[in-house]
């Protein structure tokens, strides 16, 4: 059969080749879906505030518009859990469960330049036992190497207020560990089933750093946020501490946050 396929005329070849090609495509697609089965995708996002910046009415709490060219974050100790019971960050304690998937090593990403159309950066897609990954632990760690080695979070961009423009480069060297419950958002995430990879998401809320002008001044987020004023002098590299700033979330869900000692 295969031999005759290659000894016939062109038209006959097309006629006969089509079923073979179709069968081949089906096989390849079948193998692809088999590879995708029981996979967990690790993602990170700075949401639209990272990719689109702070634009009116969502200015910083002190009225600055911000645009970012780079937001570099280094992540490690990333472990997704099938927690049982469900982990409640406000209650603290450890995440316990039957299954977990760990992202090996430390990864440095850019939440601006590497973001896809949904403001998402994929860290990895790993084989995972089927089930619901409803808890996520992760750390922001000092980058082990590269241009910004030693910094766990770097934000580079330009700020503007009342015609004044400031180029900024701000960074933190703090290591911060996060223990989070289930992703909270428009849809539930983390379900790994045969043929459909699950997703877990690390979400950085930049408004917890800069505050939001469209929120009340006494909103707890604005009370804790630094705003941009401390960095308005510009400069090559200004530093800040992540201590007390809860940037790390899972979607809209909060995390138990602990500064890791050096």
């Amino acid at each position, binding site marked *: 059969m295969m031999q005759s396929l290659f000894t016939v005329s062109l038209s006959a070849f097309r006629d006969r080749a089509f079923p073979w090609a179709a069968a081949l495509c089906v096989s390849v697609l079948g193998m692809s879906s088999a590879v995708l089965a029981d996979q967990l995708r690790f993602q990170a996002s700075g949401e639209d505030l990272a990719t689109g910046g702070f634009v009116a009415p969502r200015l910083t709490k002190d009225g600055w518009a911000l645009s970012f060219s780079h937001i570099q974050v280094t992540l490690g100790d990333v472990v997704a859990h099938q927690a049982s019971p469900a982990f409640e960050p*406000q209650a603290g304690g450890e995440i316990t469960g039957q299954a977990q998937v760990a992202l090996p090593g430390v990864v440095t990403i850019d939440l601006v330049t590497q973001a896809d159309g949904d403001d998402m950066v994929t860290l990895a897609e790993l084989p995972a036992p089927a089930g*619901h990954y409803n808890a996520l632990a992760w750390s922001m760690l000092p980058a082990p190497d590269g241009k910004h080695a030693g910094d766990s979070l770097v934000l580079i961009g330009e700020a503007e207020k009342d015609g004044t423009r400031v180029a900024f480069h701000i960074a933190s060297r703090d290591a911060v560990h996060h223990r989070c419950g289930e992703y*909270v958002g428009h849809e539930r995430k983390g379900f790994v089933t045969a043929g459909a990879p699950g997703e877990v998401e690390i979400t950085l809320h930049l408004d917890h750093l800069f505050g939001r002008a469209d929120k009340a001044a006494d909103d*707890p987020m604005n009370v804790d946020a630094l705003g941009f004023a401390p960095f308005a002098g510009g400069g090559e590299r200004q530093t800040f501490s992540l201590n007390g700033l809860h940037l790390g979330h899972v979607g809209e869900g909060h995390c138990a946050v602990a500064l890791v000692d050096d």
Partner: protein
Amino acid sequence: MWAVGARRVLITGAAAAVCAATGQAFAHAAYIQLSPARGVEVRAAYDSGEPMVSAQVRIYAPDAPARVWLQGLTDESGVYRFVPDPAIDGAWAVQVRQAGHGAMGEIRLEPTSVPAAEAALPLSTSATGPDPLQKALMAAAIIWGFIGTALYFKRPR
């Protein structure tokens, strides 16, 4: 943040089919059926203690955890109550969201028997039930319904 409160007994109402049986006698009467049911109270608040007023609540049943089973809004106290389907046992998930902040929680319910006792009560400002005449009319309407049905099928063709 917020916490799922202890299970409480709730009273839930449902339109009663008995309305149809008594429709001619009490054209403006409305009836509800009341039955005790085990329910869940969700109390949502920020960590400052401020209630999450009018926050979006979504309930996910254990047998279809990725699909919204029920949704609504918290009241002025940050409270939302719902009665899970007693036929679906397992962990019921509750999501509360408002203005970019949210939380998930779950409560595991064991299979429960639905209370058998039910009472048909008129919806009125009075707390009293149907009087003897009303009861007699309701019974007569139901019996006549059976008789009429039997006669229909026994009629000569």
